[in-house]
């Protein structure tokens, strides 16, 4: 019978190659797949292109991956925040390519990749410097820009509960980019806080049907921190 759960973070990340395009879910610290980000650093793939909402904070998670020199390019909406010291240093040193994408366009480009839509038009960025060089076109008297789908080789996703078929539900604001990134990669790897038997999740409430998921690793939550800025490293451990 089908069981997509693998035994370790290392097994989950097996085969990710240098030069891969990697999506990483989460918004702020909520829904960030910390354990598999850590695992990706150990796994060793280099020259990665990252797609994520931001460019990491402090020295853990995304920032640690950047700091390890594994990322050559990042596509995100919000690279710079108070804690984005690693990104700043690498970017200033010219060691990191950056593509800034408005958050809604980023989300829609990811969704389009998962939905077999190669390109779409959006009003966002019209009349701004981010529309420079983009194809403009009028529909019903309003001007839009063309945006292309943003697919990935690998998506790293955190879910709250998954079953062995890969069905996933998220928790509260942890759904964010995770649910759409799960649809947009050739290989979707889920870090699940909880595992359950297929048939126990409510079919009406499953957010990510299993067909989008290839591998699941169970990473139970150790403690729920109330400080969202605290190190994620203390929060999760691979099961």
């Amino acid at each position: 019978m089908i069981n997509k759960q693998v035994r370790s973070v290392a097994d989950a990340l097996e085969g990710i190659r240098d030069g891969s395009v990697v999506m990483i879910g989460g918004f702020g610290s909520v829904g960030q797949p910390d354990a598999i980000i850590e695992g990706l650093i150990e796994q060793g793939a280099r020259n990665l292109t990252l797609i994520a909402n931001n460019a990491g904070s402090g020295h853990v998670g995304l920032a640690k991956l950047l700091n390890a020199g594994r990322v050559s390019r990042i596509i995100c909406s919000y690279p710079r925040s108070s804690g984005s010291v690693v990104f700043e240093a690498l970017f200033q040193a010219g060691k990191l390519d950056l593509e800034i994408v408005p958050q809604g366009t980023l989300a829609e480009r990811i969704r389009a990749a998962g939905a077999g839509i190669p390109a779409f038009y959006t009003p966002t960025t019209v009349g701004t410097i981010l529309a420079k060089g983009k194809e403009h076109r009028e529909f019903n008297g309003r001007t839009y820009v063309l945006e292309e789908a943003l697919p990935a080789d690998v998506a790293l996703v955190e879910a709250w509960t998954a079953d062995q078929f890969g069905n996933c539900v998220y928790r509260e604001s942890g759904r964010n980019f995770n649910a759409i990134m799960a649809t947009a990669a050739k290989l979707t790897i889920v870090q699940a806080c909880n595992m359950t038997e297929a048939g126990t999740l409510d079919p009406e409430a499953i957010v990510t049907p299993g067909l989008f998921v290839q591998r699941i690793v169970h990473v139970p939550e150790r403690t729920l921190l109330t400080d969202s800025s605290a190190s994620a490293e203390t929060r999760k451990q691979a099961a």
Partner: protein
Amino acid sequence: MSPDSFTPLSRRAMAKRIAEDIQDGWYVNLGIGIPTLVADALPDSKDIFLHSENGILGFGPAPDPDHVDPWLINAGKQHVTLRPGASFFHHADSFAMIRGGHLDLCILGAFEVSSDGDIANWSTSAQDMAPAVGGAMDLAVGAKRVWVATEHTTREGAPKLVEQCHYPLTAPGVVSRIYTNLAVIDVENGHFVVRDMVSGLTPEGLQKLTGAKLYFRENVNA
């Protein structure tokens, strides 16, 4: 001419002033900064549904420190609470709501607003190669109404309400009203039209702090 004697509104007072103008039943997104404070200022007598880019509709004010839910943050990464009737969704659905025109109102902070309704609130220089745009551009073009909440001038006293924005635009021609610590100003047909000022401030005094010509409603309370 004696100098005006007035007290600018505190950020909390600005939030309260804005909250008064939000109508029962509206769906509203609050940007980072002063707009965020509106969440804590909404009256219980109205059902106002707050939307957050990261997939929440119907969140409430900040929790008390003993009851923080770490999975429940708004777009500013601050902890929030949930109100009855709230729902969760993913980022593409969240921005479908924004871009699709389903929000009655979005309140944004701003570096500058022009009398044409242009807003600049994401990047302080065209030379900055790594500005953080987040959801600002989507919100600015998507919401049915865009209001700005900002100090009337910079800390250095330079006007933020101007004839033409000098910072890179977030979106052109979208702002319909501005709430500052000194006044409430509508943007109408390329003009700033003052509807409300803090007491003690004169039209001339406000004009001096503003980078474009002000028009005044007949019944403006000065």
